[in-house]
């Protein structure tokens, strides 16, 4: 990026929002998901029939709702950070709660989807497509839950952790959201 300010050009790391330690973790997490997606893609091309059948059974509307919910959650988090910077704690709290509520929509929809599939007789073992489906989405769901935990932690400890900590938490949340945006087309739409 040639048009960055000269300060950033001198030392790019100083402009990184949040803690560098978190960015190392974000890269690691993205790598895990990237490998999972690659494995999924390889298996897809090896068992095309089976995977297409499995995919047909997924509810794409649920995937859409989740996508919208997560994008909104990210927006709320970003807005909350902005409010924090401008010293408006009330709005900050409100938007962080809104982010959690959006995330909760995801959790509810996902669990309903799981419930539906389990009732239809699919699980972690058995059908290969659903093994991957449950592994990847389940792993992502756990990340969302962890992300919600972090957001709530930040909400209660906002005075203690400050902008630096808040940016760190926000970076993690955006990573979780980003993963879903890749996951959604690969698993549902394709």
């Amino acid at each position, binding site marked *: 990026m040639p048009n960055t300010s000269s300060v950033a050009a001198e030392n790019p790391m100083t402009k990184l929002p949040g803690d560098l*330690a978190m960015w190392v*973790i974000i890269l690691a997490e993205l790598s895990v998901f990237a490998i999972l997606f690659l494995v999924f893609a390889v298996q897809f091309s090896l068992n095309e029939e089976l995977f297409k059948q499995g995919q047909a059974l997924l509810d794409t509307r649920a995937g859409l709702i989740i996508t919208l919910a997560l994008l909104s959650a990210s927006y709320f988090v970003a807005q909350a950070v902005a409010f924090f910077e401008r010293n408006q704690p009330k709005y900050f709290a409100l938007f962080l709660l809104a982010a959690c509520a959006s995330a909760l929509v995801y959790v509810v929809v996902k669990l309903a989807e799981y419930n539906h599939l389990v009732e239809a007789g699919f699980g972690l*073992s058995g059908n290969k497509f659903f093994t991957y489906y449950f592994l990847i989405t389940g792993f992502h769901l756990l990340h969302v839950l962890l992300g919600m935990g972090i957001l709530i932690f930040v909400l209660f400890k906002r005075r203690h952790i400050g902008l630096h900590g808040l940016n760190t938490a926000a970076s993690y949340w955006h990573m979780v959201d980003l993963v879903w945006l890749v996951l959604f087309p690969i698993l549902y739409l394709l």
Partner: protein
Amino acid sequence: MKFESQSVAKPYFIAAIGLFVGQILFGVILGLQYVMGDFLFPEIPFNVARMVHTNLLIVWLLFGFMGSAYYLIPEESETELHSPKLALLLFWVFLVAGALTIVGYLSVPYATLAKITGNDLLPTMGREFLEMPTITKVGVVIVALGFLYNLGMTFLKGRKTVISSVLMLGLIGLAVMFLFSFYNPENLVRDKFYWWWVVHLWVEGVWELIMGALLAFVLIKTTGVDREVIEKWLYLIIAMALITGIIGTGHHYFWIGTPEYWLVLGSVFSALEPVPFFMMTLFAFNMVNKRRRDHPNKVAVLWAMGTGVMAFLGAGVWGFMHTLSPINYVTHGTQLTAAHGHMAFYGAYVMVVLCMISYTMPLMRGRAAANSNLSQVVEMWSFWLMTVSMVFITLFLTAAGIVQSYLQRMGDSPLPFMVVQEKIEIFYWMREVAGLVFLIGLVVYIVSFFVKGEEATV
């Protein structure tokens, strides 16, 4: 040495080196049995020699960890050890128990040993690496409890640093995971499942905490780099170790009867297990580059950098080589596993313990900072002899493993195991030669302790 009680580490280190010699002698015997099948048969059959080889490794590393901890915790806590007497008592208990066990292995058939020690009451024997009689296992637990109590009291009354906290956490984890060695279900699949909780979660889990803490300690002491910086690295390294390593256990759950999803989980997470080891390499080199002073104990710094590199090669690269399930399908249980095991153990754990010994021994023997230049040069020779020969052992076993996988597992007409073994004999001979060089390196290492001279200065 800041505190008198730290010197309790000395007998631990001496015992560790003694047992190390035993381990390597049996390693050489094993290597010879690979090419001369009847060597020492039936007096010391292969299985007995191997048991001695692997169990000695574990026991001497434990001695090394304990000695390191007895040295490190008081220094970090800035207080005397809670009870040096208890530490000495436990030393003798552990040494005698260990020696008796080895004598038991060598003097009576294993089945007899099982009968004598009452294995029928609580069968825990006869599983790889956990062959010791149940009563020895109980002894290990008692020693570990006393050891943790002693260190815990020291830790609690003194200054709490990140390094000492991480070391304590690693040691507690080590003791806790060992408890699973008492759990031996009648169902082989479940037996194997929980057996890995000891083996994998040791060497690819909590031991990495110990290794990280010891390495960080030596680096702080020898480079003078800001503690704050080193501690951040340490946290990040062990975070990566556990994040990848815990689910990484799954790479042992491919073919033992556990569900298919472990093929994916084990592959993905264990593929990332090299990351913490790579960070350790970066860590060691970075800190040495940023050093604020030149420490006269150059050989300790050499060991520290060596362990960073070799751990990454052995555990990281050689582990990654056969950790993906489609590859592991053909390489599982071949000489490739042996290759990985040798270099990983040497690079990660042997070298870090030798690094601690190298740093602390001169201090415990009354020097201000380091041994004489000549002694250090001799020790550096041993470093290169052992390290290079280990690289060659690994390369020869890797070649053997690849050929074995190909002949026995691939192709249209796979050959029987014993036929393949004859075809790869040449690699075993070369490995044996490399093993002898390693033994020479070890002898040189011991000689270095007896080389006198003026203490080295920067």
